């Protein structure tokens, strides 16, 4: 009567990742529910537990009495080796039951580099990797999250995808499954056909893709007349009424965001031209300060966390930020709770209020100019100026901070040497500004510049652009390295090889499933972790699948080309992206939604407390 589980847990690093039993986890009687739903996060527990979206969907599904949603995470490699050696399948966190026995298995796709983990987890769960190989009794595999906006590279592995915000759509999907199971009309094919009629559900196998001789997409044809020609993303129209998880699961081990994450609004008014999140989450939909304050209190009572972080894409764009902060500050000090606002812009926020909130619990300030010159910042529509940066750092220096982190991108469309020089120059001006600040701290300043490689993303004005080839990316990194001479400036850059793989996967089409399968066969997983990433293996995987990485990463997609992801309608139109791209070339900025609507198209989705012209309760 040996206890296999304890032997296993005592032999791996960080056993708390797997032990479960957390306060707040939801346990149901498996015999009394009609559908068992495994919500998989294809990365470690610590990262998965910090994801707000997963937390919301876990709660929303479990609100349904007859659905039991459980969590699943990717085992670290030491655990995986033991599982394989002992022939133990991947299991769900709450019940410990094998994932392969569930009705529905969902994966949230947060970044491209987790795709190999998805395949690895399917394999560990003994679920056939290819959707076409799954029998009637196999679980239905559904994907969602930001990468589902172009899920084509994963099309062969998934039965379907949930596009957009899943609170309602996943429940409707599971209800349909239950209904068909209960009235005995369920067949795999029949269910997927019905599911394809639910708003936001995309069933790739129901669309026939043809290609041109040059490898570009020729057409997407639905196989049935009663399913939509394009799948429109789902949104929650009224964020005040959207499902809100009142009692989150409390992790025992430290996670990435160990604090209250208060989602203030969805969407973004800014429209930076490289940013996918800023486009696909449109339109902005705000919650009211009163609702947010109640939700914050509720989360404080349910978690005991001592920090509230206001979480949204650009928090200072919230139209009622001072009001919200004042409401929160009415009770947080007495409860020993601190308030933090990530990525604060000083331009529209009062100094007095700022003194009451901590921007971050550290001595550093972060700022993302993204490009080194005003010209290039105009190209990408990042509406910040050097003056904004100087004003912000001065305030920070006066407030006792000495370290500044600046985020940039290299390889942006139209970039020249001058723009790279600008990055170094901007960092130097910050140092200079420090010594110009009369009441600066005594310690020496430290500026860290972190430079990412530009990755063209679907559903952005730069979706057609080519990524710099690897040699150029590396040369530019070296160039910048030579430029930075001041020892007070620390220079970090992303791995160019990783960025290239990311670009290829981001703009991939269905044929890329073969490359992913090949990568999986080469034993790849945890590609987002530098200790596991292998560029050589990725090159081999693409080659093995007969694909050229450059076709996806380094090719300028044609103006009239049908893009693989255009089977999805994210609300924002292709015409808008094309207009924005032209303006980018002309280094012309676009006003943000708050100043003026630029008719991006997202208003057709509806939404309350939004800036869109036709919004209900417009802001």
């Amino acid at each position, binding site marked *: *009567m*040996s*206890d*296999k589980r*304890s*032997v296993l*847990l*005592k032999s791996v690093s960080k*056993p*708390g990742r*797997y*032990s*479960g*039993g*957390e*306060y707040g986890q939801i346990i149901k009687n498996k015999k009394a529910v009609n559908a068992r739903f495994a919500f998989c996060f294809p990365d470690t527990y610590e990262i998965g537990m910090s994801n707000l979206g997963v937390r919301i969907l876990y709660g929303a599904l479990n609100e349904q009495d007859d659905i039991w949603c459980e969590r699943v995470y990717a085992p670290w490699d030491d655990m995986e080796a033991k599982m394989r050696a*002992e022939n133990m399948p991947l299991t769900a966190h709450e019940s410990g039951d094998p994932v392969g026995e569930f009705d529905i298995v969902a994966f949230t796709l947060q970044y491209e580099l987790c795709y190999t983990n998805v395949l690895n987890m399917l394999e560990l769960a003994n679920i056939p990797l290819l959707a076409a190989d799954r029998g009637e009794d196999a679980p239905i595999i559904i994907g969602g999250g930001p990468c589902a906006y172009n899920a084509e590279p994963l099309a062969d592995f998934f039965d379907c995808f949930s596009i957009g915000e899943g609170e309602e759509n996943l429940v409707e999907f599971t209800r349909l499954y239950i209904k068909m199971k209960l009235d005995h009309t369920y067949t795999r094919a029949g269910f997927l056909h019905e599911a394809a009629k639910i708003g936001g559900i995309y069933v790739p196998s129901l669309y026939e893709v043809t290609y041109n001789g040059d490898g570009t997409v020729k057409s997407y044809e639905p196989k049935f007349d009663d399913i939509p020609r394009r799948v429109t993303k789902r949104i929650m129209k009224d964020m005040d009424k959207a499902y809100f998880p009142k009692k989150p699961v*409390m992790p*025992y*081990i*430290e996670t990435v965001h*160990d604090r209250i994450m208060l989602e203030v609004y969805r969407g973004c008014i800014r429209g930076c031209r490289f940013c996918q999140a800023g486009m696909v989450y449109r339109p902005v939909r705000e919650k009211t300060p009163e609702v947010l304050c109640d939700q914050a*209190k509720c989360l*404080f*009572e*349910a*978690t*005991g*966390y*001592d920090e509230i972080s206001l979480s949204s894409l650009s928090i200072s764009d919230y139209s009622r930020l001072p009001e919200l902060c004042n409401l929160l500050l009415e*009770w947080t000090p*007495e*409860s*020993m709770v601190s308030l933090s606002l990530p990525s604060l812009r000083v331009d529209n926020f009062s100094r007095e209020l700022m003194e009451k909130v901590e921007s971050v*619990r550290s001595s550093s300030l972060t700022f993302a100019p993204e490009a080194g010159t005003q010209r290039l910042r105009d190209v990408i529509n990042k509406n910040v100026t050097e003056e904004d940066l100087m004003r912000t750092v001065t305030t920070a220096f006066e407030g006792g901070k000495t370290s500044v982190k600046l985020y940039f991108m290299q390889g942006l469309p139209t970039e020249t040497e001058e723009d790279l020089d600008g990055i170094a120059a901007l960092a130097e001006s910050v140092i200079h500004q420090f010594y110009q600040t009369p009441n600066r701290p005594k310690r020496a300043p430290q500026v860290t510049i972190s430079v990412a490689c530009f990755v063209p993303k679907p559903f952005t004005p730069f979706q057609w652009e080519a990524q710099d080839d690897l040699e150029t990316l590396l040369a530019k990194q070296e160039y910048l390295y030579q430029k930075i001479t001041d020892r007070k400036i620390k220079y970090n850059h992303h791995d160019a090889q990783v960025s290239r793989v990311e670009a290829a996967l981001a703009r991939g089409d269905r044929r890329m499933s073969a490359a992913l399968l090949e990568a999986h066969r080469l034993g790849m997983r945890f590609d987002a972790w530098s200790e596991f990433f292998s560029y050589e293996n990725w090159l081999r995987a693409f080659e093995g699948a007969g694909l050229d990485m450059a076709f996806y990463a380094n090719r300028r997609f044609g103006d009239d080309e049908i893009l693989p992801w255009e089977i999805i309608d994210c609300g924002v139109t292709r015409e808008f992206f094309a207009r924005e791209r032209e303006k980018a070339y002309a280094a012309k900025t676009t006003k943000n939604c708050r100043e003026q609507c630029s008719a991006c198209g997202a208003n057709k989705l509806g939404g309350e407390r939004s800036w869109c012209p036709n919004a209900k309760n417009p802001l």
Partner: protein
Amino acid sequence: MSAFDKQKMKPLKDPIPMRLKFRKVGDLQYISHLDLQRVMSRIIVRSGIPAWYTQGFNPHAKMTFALPLSVGTQSICEFIDIKIDREIPTSEILDRLNAQVTEDMKFSAAYVPTTKLAQIAWVSYEINICTDTSDGTLADKVKGLLTTRPLIMKKRSKSGEREVDILDYFKSVTVEQGETLTLRVMLRAGEGSLNPEMIVTALRDRLGLLATAEESYTIMRTGVYFEDGREFE
């Protein structure tokens, strides 16, 4: 019961110490001491008990843990000292805390202490080993190993690895053989104490026990004691 309730309780003139006894069993055995500290502070906040906060830049509920427990060891006798600064019956403290934890961590006592945590001198463990016990002399072999000096093992500490006779830490040991093998040991507590996991390692290295995946073990901290052997309170 809410985290906000403590604001309605009557303030005390001076904070008073409060000792809490709890267990850490089941899945919680896999949580490190550092993680437990964070978890505990959240439990205290959620419960709404009027814990006294340290002053300063980063205020938090003052907590002093008795003996850290290593990962993989369970316990039914963990102690933590806090201070409270408002009026509240001890029974309510228990109710409030127990409403915020799972079965793996229940609080069994709350009282104003009359002793210091540093007075803990001995700690007892029960080590239960699932192994093939058909060899009738197994208990004697184990007992022999754990009573014949010296039993030199490598012990890791802050200052590096050194060799020690682990029996130096022993006060007593009993071994019982039934369907499983049960060891009850009493070890010296406090600075540089012996991780009971080392005993398991000794059995593995010297007697070849627990070498297969079919065998498993549990370790339970069963009691803590004053120098004179009386149970600590």
